[in-house]
């Protein structure tokens, strides 16, 4: 462990690549925020995909891990404000779980900031745009995740 | 309930990691690595960890089968051995001794492997014998 192997092959410049961002948006707030951004025709970077979910409670932490394993550079989970969940406390439950996942991501060096858990209400469409733009900028400064973590030595047998 | 841990050696390859089989009322139900084993030092690979699974597995081969048509039929050991001997003899007579070879297994014991090469060398009179763990 004493010898530090260079990771230079992974350091690409931010301009050379667009990060891949996956958004889990709850149907009642996050998705409506995305809709609001769309209605205003706010130009957004096309590097994100939205998966609508009934409630952020149904976003398995394992699905977030799977997303990173499938080559996402960042994941956003968007739910309703605490206290404003249609499903009682489900968003708070999700928040607690995902905070723990953030601690794990930080531990293994992926960095807790690659997973963004955020809460808003339906009318905050302009904030959806802000969050996406800022998050894209933040992730673009980091090295890509989809190098040797997932694919380099792995092969089918 | 009679539950005991039986020390043994992993049969899957030539490394010979030590392991403990948990035996409950005469049935092997679980495998644990032997932490006192000088070879494995408490480690096993996936094959060792799953060693207990095949012992009582319903698909395990426990008696000779012969293929008739599309299906296998159970036959006795005498029938099986004489059938094999007859077929080997036929091949040797038709194509010569070198047409027969043997491939042994790391799961067998040293003694079994000795006997196997003896069978090929002395019985079939050639050197066509090898082993899966010869890397």
């Amino acid at each position: 462990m004493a010898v530090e192997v260079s990771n230079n092959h992974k350091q690409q410049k931010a301009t050379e690549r667009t990060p891949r961002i996956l958004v889990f948006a709850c149907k009642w707030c996050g998705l409506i925020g995305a809709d609001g951004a769309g209605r205003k025709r706010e130009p957004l970077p096309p590097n994100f995909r939205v998966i609508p979910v009934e409630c952020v409670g149904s976003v398995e932490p394992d699905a977030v891990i799977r997303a990173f394993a499938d080559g996402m550079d960042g994941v956003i989970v968007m739910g309703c404000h605490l206290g404003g969940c249609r499903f009682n406390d489900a968003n708070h439950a999700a928040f607690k779980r995902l905070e723990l996942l953030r601690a794990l991501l930080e531990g293994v060096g992926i960095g807790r900031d690659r997973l963004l858990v955020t809460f808003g209400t339906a009318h905050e469409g302009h904030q959806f745009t802000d969050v996406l733009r800022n998050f894209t900028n933040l992730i673009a400064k980091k090295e890509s995740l989809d190098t040797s973590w997932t694919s380099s030595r792995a092969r089918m047998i | 309930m009679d539950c005991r841990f039986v020390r043994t050696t992993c049969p899957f390859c030539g490394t010979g990691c030590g392991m403990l089989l948990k035996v409950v009322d005469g049935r092997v139900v679980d495998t644990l690595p032997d932490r006192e084993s000088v070879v494995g030092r408490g480690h096993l690979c996936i094959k060792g960890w799953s060693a207990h699974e095949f012992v009582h597995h319903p698909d395990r081969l426990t008696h000779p089968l012969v293929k008739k048509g599309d299906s296998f039929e159970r036959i006795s050991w005498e029938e099986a051995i004489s059938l094999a001997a007859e077929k080997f003899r036929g091949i040797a007579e038709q194509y010569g001794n070198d047409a027969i070879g043997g491939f042994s297994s790391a799961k067998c014991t040293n003694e079994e492997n000795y006997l196997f090469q003896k069978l090929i060398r002395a019985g079939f009179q050639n050197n066509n014998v090898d082993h899966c763990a010869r890397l």
Partner: protein
Amino acid sequence: MKTQQAMIDQAKSLLKKLLEDGEATAVFGLARGMGGVTAPRIFTMPDELDSLVLEPKWPLAKPAMEILRTAPGGYRLAVVCRGCDERALVELIKRNQVDADALVMVGVACSGEQASICLCDRPYPSKLDIGEAAHGVDPFDDPGVKYLLEGDTHTRMGRWERVLKRCVKCYGCRNSCPICVCDPCKLEGEPWVRRGIIPTEILSFHLIRAFHLADTCVACGACQEACPAGIPLVTLQHAMRRALREGFEYEAGLDVNEKTPVLFDFIQAPEKDRPIPDWINTLRD
């Protein structure tokens, strides 16, 4: 500090009494058998306990749980528990895997030396019957842990990558973990972990495994000890254990009645002094 022999004598007399009084049907512990080799053993007769030993460390929680699962009704098993065994069994009781009434835990203290090998901050059970509690070790003082958990993420990602790449997908970590009880396990197939890929997909395999134990891991180190590739798997859990301790003052395995904060106590509004990110301020921390 008691001598090793004194501890063994004390354990023997205590356990013999349990068997003689009918408090326990059997005792589960370590025995020195033929050739001086130590292995776990189920003692059913008081005389058999003469071969009982307490060292080396051998995680007994998982086999104990499995014995109790198949045991007939009325069977009571006394288990010689180290601190980590006790905490693991407490977690198993919380998750309905072990009948608390069928379990008698006999607590044994670990030596300080053992604690420093395990990087254990609590090398003693809450109910200590044999030996004296040694001082714990803060795992975050260990240079190996610091190497992997402290510093900038980019460097550490490279370090973790090299460590985790050694994985041979033996499932030893899962098999030896006292808390892993699911059958089938998510690590065995689609869509969580791709089948037939060797070595495994590092991220999905190790992070899913680690996260499943997020609030239950008692840091017993069984996974790490079983790993033939020498991956410091407990270090992966330390990050989450620290988050739980700092965020919720919770530690797994200490109290049967204390529920994990991840599943309970949801609040309607952000708590005082614990800001919850909003859409506006999420990116500012």
